[in-house]
């Protein structure tokens, strides 16, 4: 048995949709448990009073990164077969910037807005409708911006390749960076505890 299972045709695409639903349940469950159904908690990230976004995101990244790395090292998981989005520096940097602004204005990102809506938030629903609209606008002007959209393409490229460091060393550095970020997050939560929406109730 080799992983990724689907890429070795252990099951067909209809079953993959069932897998998608089950993985989605885990995803949604974790996001809700983590408090990501609440726009106030999410937005508090940007006012340094509640750092759940950073903590959840980075501990998830570190967990999955270590998992992928060690499963790759023992030769069970073939990293080459995991889909990676190609890098397009400028569109991704600008897209990230716009997304960050949208995050602080709307209080969600696409995944968390779905979770929020599932627990009954009307603003989550409005956000989803907004996202549909934004995607529609993007689709309509796509012919005009497709040049920019396809610019500065580096193909599939990883941090170890860019930094010319061994993969394991980058893993180590990311772990250290995450631990440092957690420490800062704890400190800043203590300092701005007076405006943490989680402490209100």
């Amino acid at each position, binding site marked *: 048995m080799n992983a990724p299972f689907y890429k070795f045709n252990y099951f067909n695409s209809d079953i993959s949709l069932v897998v998608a639903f089950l993985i989605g349940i885990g995803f949604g469950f974790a996001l809700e448990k983590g408090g990501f159904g609440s726009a106030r908690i999410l937005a508090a990230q940007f006012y340094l009073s509640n750092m759940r976004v950073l903590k959840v995101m980075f501990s998830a990244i570190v967990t999955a990164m270590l998992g992928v790395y060690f499963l790759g090292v023992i030769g069970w998981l073939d990293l080459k077969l995991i889909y990676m989005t190609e890098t397009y520096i400028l569109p991704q940097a*600008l897209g990230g910037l716009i997304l960050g602004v949208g995050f602080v204005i709307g209080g*969600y990102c696409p995944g968390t807005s779905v979770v929020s809506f599932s627990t009954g938030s009307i603003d989550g629903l409005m956000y989803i409708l907004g996202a549909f609209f934004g995607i529609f606008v993007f689709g309509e002007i796509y012919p005009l911006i497709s040049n920019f959209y396809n610019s500065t393409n580096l193909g599939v490229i990883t941090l170890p390749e860019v930094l010319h460091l061994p993969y394991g060393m980058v893993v180590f550095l990311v772990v250290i960076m995450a631990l440092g970020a957690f420490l800062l997050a704890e400190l800043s939560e203590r300092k701005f505890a007076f405006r943490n929406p989680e402490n209100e109730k």
Partner: protein
Amino acid sequence: MESVSKIVSDLFEKDQEFVEPKPKPYSDPYLVGIGLGLVLLAAFVIMGRGLGASGAMSSIVAYGVNSLAPEHASSNDFYKEYIGDGTTNPLKDWLVFEVLGVLAGGFISGTLSGRIRVRVEKGNNISKKKRLLFAFIGGSLMGFGAKLARGCTSGQALTGGALLNFGSWIFMIMIFVGGYLFAYFLRRQWL
């Protein structure tokens, strides 16, 4: 008589408590993060791909445009990518099913923790109407930005972050830059 009114008010209080049970506090973010990381790892191991959200929304938009104006949709490369060659329904997509799962998962967790409530999440100094408008605007920006970046926080930052994808890390840093830069202007909404 007094005792009767006391019983009534007691009942009423209990009733109120029943209507609005205190929601359980959110779980430890680190444990949740590890759980989320394991879900992501499961996606890698089972499917060879990561999580996503905005992709499903794009499929729905493309599906909508295609049903209203098929010629318009087929002349546009962006929609075409989501519609495919027409042999399968664009909604029969991995990410669409995954997001349906997210809806279900969020609802299950919300139910277990007593957090299902029809509500508008907002700061104390902003009206509901304004908050809903802001949510719509934020969503639009997010939808546009996510498409430009070829993914959102789930598809790019989380998935690509764990795979040490170079573009995803640039994207992730820029999200925080954008958020912190604009946080000041929006403090009335949230604080």
